[in-house]
């Protein structure tokens, strides 16, 4: 990767163009829009040739790291391989030209895909009905919580305004609940990282709409008491929401619907192999149990029927997996995570000694190289040093239960050789830290840029391009 400093605006030359439109004549059309409806100041758009555009964005792409570049052990993000056949299917012109409001009789193929997806996801999760409108995981969470509220509202049970969220939950859980008008009540985790059932009991009551659970949780641990938790929540009149961000280890192994969950979302861009796209487009379909079927189909939470292009990709993946290969998907994800955990716990602090599912959390280095004179290397420093060795960093400083959290998720698509090479590098970095933490603290050394001054950037934010004339 090499540093490239241009912005597209800086390549602009007056009179250059990168488009080709037809000459068209529409006889008899006269007149124009009235001047008072037109903009006074022209929009600042670049004037560049086609080749300028291609080279500029190719150069930008070369400062980026993707799953196709190398190993991407980013916890809770499930950076599995994105199959290329999926891209081919999604790019088929026969799908690209379909208007979302076309008459149903012209969309039989589309309907078949949605039906087949719903049936497949129901089989995989144990839920009964799905909506595909949500465009992302957080959007699915919000939709799911709306379903929870609607369920209580329709029963006239309007006092249920609280939702219980474990302290280990993803940040989106409380944020989605707040957007949905719910008050958040935090339930604590025990020493072993699992939800504390004794802490939960007194929180339950007639004001509780439900609980949001991630299972396995963000520490990668299966919530073994889920049966009891489900019974308690249901007994108190609440519903159980399953955050599907961590569904991958259960793919082909276990189904949230069987555990008592009433509502869940899936991230097709995690569990079902569609690319993350640098932060979207994703897809966050929401599944519900039978009694919530009417509600799930009635909520309009996005423009049309969700990100169809992403749904196509996910269904291509499901067809490749089939009922034969799905049986190994979750198991191999779990195998890979445990293999890394066991191979590195001699150099990194493992706060909870237990079998994990698809991911696990270290709490920093065992020997960070710190002395009375100098600071030791932190999790941030390890993350930055990994970039030098050609790896993406794990998720860092999350979950919030540990100060030096480093969350590692390898996924099932990585080979033993890839994991072994990563383990070697993590050991090497631990040795470097013990020897001289400065090597880590000054990392990355060979990325396109070194560490930025984020504080200065936030203090005086520059959030758009301003040409020199505008700045002066």
């Amino acid at each position, binding site marked *: *990767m090499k*540093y490239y400093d241009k*912005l*597209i605006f800086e390549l602009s030359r007056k009179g250059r163009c*990168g488009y080709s439109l037809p000459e*068209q004549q*529409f006889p008899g*059309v006269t007149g124009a*829009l*009235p001047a008072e409806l037109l*903009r006074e100041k022209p929009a600042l*758009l670049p004037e560049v040739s*086609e080749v300028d555009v*291609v080279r500029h*964005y190719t150069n930008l792409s070369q400062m*980026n790291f*993707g*799953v196709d570049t190398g190993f991407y052990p980013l916890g809770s993000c499930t950076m*599995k391989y994105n199959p290329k056949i999926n891209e081919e299917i999604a790019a088929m012109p*026969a799908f*690209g030209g379909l*208007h979302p409001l*076309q008459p149903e009789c012209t*969309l039989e*193929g589309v309907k*078949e895909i949605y039906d087949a997806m719903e049936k*497949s996801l129901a089989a995989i999760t144990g839920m009964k009905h799905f909506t595909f409108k949500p*465009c*992302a*995981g957080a*959007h699915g969470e919000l939709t799911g919580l709306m379903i929870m*509220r609607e369920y209580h509202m329709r029963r006239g049970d309007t006092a249920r305004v609280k939702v219980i969220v474990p302290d280990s939950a993803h*940040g*989106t859980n*409380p944020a989605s609940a*707040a957007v949905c008008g719910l008050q958040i009540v935090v339930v604590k985790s025990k020493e072993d990282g699992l939800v504390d059932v004794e802490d939960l009991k007194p929180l339950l009551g007639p004001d509780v709409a439900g609980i949001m659970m991630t299972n396995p949780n963000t520490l990668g641990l299966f919530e073994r008491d889920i049966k009891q938790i489900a019974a308690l929540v249901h007994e108190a009149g609440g519903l159980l929401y399953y955050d599907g961000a961590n569904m991958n280890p259960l793919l082909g*192994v276990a189904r949230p619907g069987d555990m008592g969950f009433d509502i869940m979302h899936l991230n097709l861009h995690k569990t079902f192999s569609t690319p*993350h796209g*640098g932060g*979207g487009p994703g897809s966050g379909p929401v599944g519900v149990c039978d009694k919530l079927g009417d509600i799930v189909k009635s909520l*309009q939470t*996005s*423009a049309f029927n*969700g*990100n169809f292009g992403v749904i196509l990709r996910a269904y291509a993946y*499901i*067809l490749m997996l089939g*009922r034969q*290969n*799905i049986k190994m998907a979750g198991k*191999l994800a779990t195998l890979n995570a445990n*293999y890394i955990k066991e191979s590195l716990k001699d150099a990194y602090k493992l706060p909870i000694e237990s079998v994990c599912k698809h991911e696990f959390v270290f709490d920093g280095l065992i020997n960070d190289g710190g002395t009375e004179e100098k600071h030791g290397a932190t999790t941030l420093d390890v993350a930055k040093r990994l970039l030098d060795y050609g790896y993406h*960093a794990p998720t860092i400083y999350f979950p919030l239960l540990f100060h030096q959290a480093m969350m590692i998720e390898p996924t099932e*698509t*990585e080979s*033993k050789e890839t994991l072994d090479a990563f383990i070697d590098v993590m050991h090497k970095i631990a040795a470097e830290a013990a020897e001289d933490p400065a090597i880590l603290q000054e990392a990355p050394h060979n990325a396109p*840029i070194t560490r930025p001054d*984020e504080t200065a950037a*936030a203090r005086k934010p520059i*959030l758009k391009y301003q040409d020199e004339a505008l700045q002066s």
Partner: protein
Amino acid sequence: MPGFCYFPHTEEDIREMLRKIGVDSLDDLNADIPADFVYKGEYDLPDALSEQQVREFFEGLAAKNTTLKVFAGAGAYDHYTPSVIPYITSRSEFLTAYTPYQCEISQGTLRYIFEFQSLVCSLTGLDVANASMYDGPTAAAEAMRMCVASARKKNTVLLSAGLLPNVRKVVETYAKYSGINLEYIALKDCRTSLDSLKALLESGDVAGAIVPGINRLGIIEDLSGFADALHGAGALLAEYCDPSALAVLKTPAEWGADIAVGDAQTLGIPLCYGGPYVGFMACTQAHMRKLPGRIVGEARDSQGRRCFVLTLQAREQHIRREKATSNICSNQSLMALWVTVYLSLMGPQGMKEVNDLSYAGAHYLYDRLLETGKFRKVSDAPFLKEFALEPLVDAKALQNVLCEAGFFGALLTEEGYVTFCVTEKRTKEEIDAMIDVIKEVRE
């Protein structure tokens, strides 16, 4: 175990890895899952297909749909996609990356988001834009929330009855569960009524209003006086706009809007049965810290080089949890790249031509439709590429006849009008052919 192309493990690999972990079998690694919950049956899924079979399966499904010549809009517009765009966006360094959490190896993503923000600011005339939203309607819902968050103690947001039905529906859904009160500004002569707005402001509880730049009847709104009326009542003006049209039309900033939202699908994103598209959101400097979603800012690295980072993160869910401005995290990043490449290729001249051609084609169709004697004018107000007429024939039958002839147009509105839309992709020949079909429609 037969091989599967996405799983690299050999049986020997699995044995060695289990040995290292200290267990005997893969099932031992799931011993923490209560036995009741380990799925023992056969999954009710199709048999695994080969890649060739998958391709043939989807080719078969694609053939069961009909691609029509699109003369409709209503939130999804058939503009041309230059071939450079999918070529760039399918580069795996962009496609297979996550959200740019590690900025040192994500400068590609961060730079194009910065460019996207700059382009949105340029089109809307506003000071700050975020890194994108899911789509237009959800961006409008976020604008509603932003109005209430900015106003304090006021809980009503006004929506123009001229907003598209799906925008209203999504905003209504969000409002219901956020406990926000919505009221509608009426249309008068097919335009959002300033008098109706002023009457609604009397309540004193209005935090803001969302008004379209071009309404669902295709009419370009004249928003003179809207910002003054709202600001005078301590409320914000949010404009729902078509960014393609903003290359020529008066900007939200010029109308005095505080917030601009909309769907950037009109900037060269294929129809694709409604998604993925990309929403956008911009605002004035004064409201910057209430803006939801990711924002990219310019920074310097430790060697003084210009670089880009996610910034102002104290607004966001991963820091603020339930106190965040929104639950949104990453969203349609690759589609923001799509739009950025589109605008780079088109430039100011290309965007002017797209609007000129759409205008000419739409007005040509409008005149021809009136000539058939099967429609009546509903307004003399100016329109750009989409317009409404009152049909003198059965609207549903009209749409069916068009559909059978391979055209998609004449979308029915709630007043019983029909709308048509013409983009730069439609030719005179196509329009004439559709008119020939319409001439044959009997009452």
